[in-house]
């Protein structure tokens, strides 16, 4: 159901006005010597470039009407997210990129498929107008969860190395010796999406709902979508962190179940 007011278009001049916010950030950085001007410049440039490219690519994909391009695009989004996680997580002693990518591909596809096919009930389930925005939200939010969970896994294993090795030296296998760290890492990954459910609608209005309302949708329809999204994000962060931590944890130990992190 659409409301009376249609979506107002944003033209080039309005985009220029919005750039004033970046000028504010750059000025603050200059005045206080924060050294963020370069990052602000590249960040702004990338925001424009990436979103414009995304807009054109999505337009193309919407026209093709075939699951192939939709799934390929979704795969590229996940690959990019896995790459960002790789650069964000500082650990270099453990090769975690491939298990992270594999877990994200498997876990996020399942969640997005369940939401589009069974919760929203889109026909066909891969319809790009639904599959890609919903999948994008899954990836974007769970990417942070996975990064947090991996940081916690590596950090805790290093910090608790003495305790982990004590358990190993008494005959524990790597799973038994790292059970507490495993739980801590999964919990760290899940907490942000649970906290988001606590604050949604009170502390902030989430992006999807805001977008739908701006596009003229009935707020009561928009909130239902948002509820689905919030629940979906709990599912995707849970499945994402669980799979990633489960696979990467094994790589923190050698063939004799010896801890490789020093």
């Amino acid at each position: 159901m659409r409301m009376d007011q249609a979506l107002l278009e944003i033209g080039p001049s309005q985009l220029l006005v919005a750039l004033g916010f970046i000028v504010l950030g750059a000025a603050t950085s200059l005045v206080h010597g924060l050294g963020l001007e370069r990052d602000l410049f590249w960040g702004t440039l990338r925001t424009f470039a990436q979103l414009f490219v995304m807009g054109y690519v999505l337009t193309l994909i919407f026209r093709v009407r075939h699951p192939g391009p939709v799934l390929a695009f979704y795969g590229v989004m996940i690959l990019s997210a896995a790459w960002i996680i790789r650069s964000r997580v500082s650990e270099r002693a453990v090769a975690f990129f491939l298990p992270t990518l594999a877990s994200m591909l498997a876990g996020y596809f399942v969640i997005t498929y369940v939401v589009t096919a069974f919760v929203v009930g889109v026909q066909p389930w891969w319809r790009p107008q639904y599959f890609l925005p919903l999948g994008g939200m899954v990836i974007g939010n769970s990417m942070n969860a996975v990064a947090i969970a991996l940081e916690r896994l590596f950090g805790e294993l290093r910090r608790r190395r003495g305790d982990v090795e004590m358990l190993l030296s008494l005959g524990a296998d790597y799973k038994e010796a790292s059970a507490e760290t495993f739980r801590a890492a999964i919990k760290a990954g899940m907490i942000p999406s649970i906290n988001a459910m606590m604050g949604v609608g009170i502390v902030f209005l989430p992006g999807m709902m805001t977008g739908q309302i701006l596009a003229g949708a009935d707020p009561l329809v928009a909130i239902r979508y948002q509820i689905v999204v919030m629940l979906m994000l709990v599912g995707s962060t849970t499945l994402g962190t669980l799979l990633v931590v489960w696979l990467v944890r094994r790589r923190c130990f050698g063939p004799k179940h010896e801890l490789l992190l020093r």
Partner: protein
Amino acid sequence: MGSEPGGPILAAPVLQCIDLRLTLPDGRPLFQGLCLDILPGQYLQIVGPSGCGKTTLLRMLAAFERPEAGTILWNGTPLEDVPGPVLRSSVIYVAQTPGMVAGTVHTNLLVPFGFRSHRNRPQPSPQEIRHLLDRMGMKDVALDRSVQDLSAGQRHRLAVLRALLLHPQVLLLDEPMSALDRESQASVESMLEAVRVQEATSIVLVSHQEPVRKRPDAVLRMHLGRLVPEGGHENGPGSS
């Protein structure tokens, strides 16, 4: 299998190091063809200055580290062919600063019995544990006392006892006496001796100090990346 206390040791080695080599990241050679035989029921002490590789050797025997070259055999089988948890349920390493899980003395002593590798092993009763704690000179330590309240020496004795409860084939002890007073040292010595005699448990103890046991089967000194008998030459007891 096993040996009479003080008598000749005839059995095959439980653990055998053959020509181990290891170079430190700074290029300094740590082990240069190190050889060692650990026999059933043998009480072996390895001495040497800090940084000479004593701890690394114990960690290698427990498969926490790997040599660049050479072989370690456990009951004749190369360590590469033995799953880590299987090895460590029989060859138990007690670190210089042993870790504890949060909880009581009793909880800590029973931790290993929850592991798959010890699941079929009967748990000792609280009475048995009490008796063993007393023998370790810990009469004043209640089973329900938090390990947070224990001294470093008490924690170390607790760690040794936790390992002994698993009836290991080999016990690898890293500086076990460093945090103990003379009386506690004597209690631990006596307990280790009893286990060695009754269960043919091999005990390998490393220390940077002088030999702690009055009559060891062998005292070996780490010298230029090899083990040599203290005050003697290579090929003495223990070093093959």
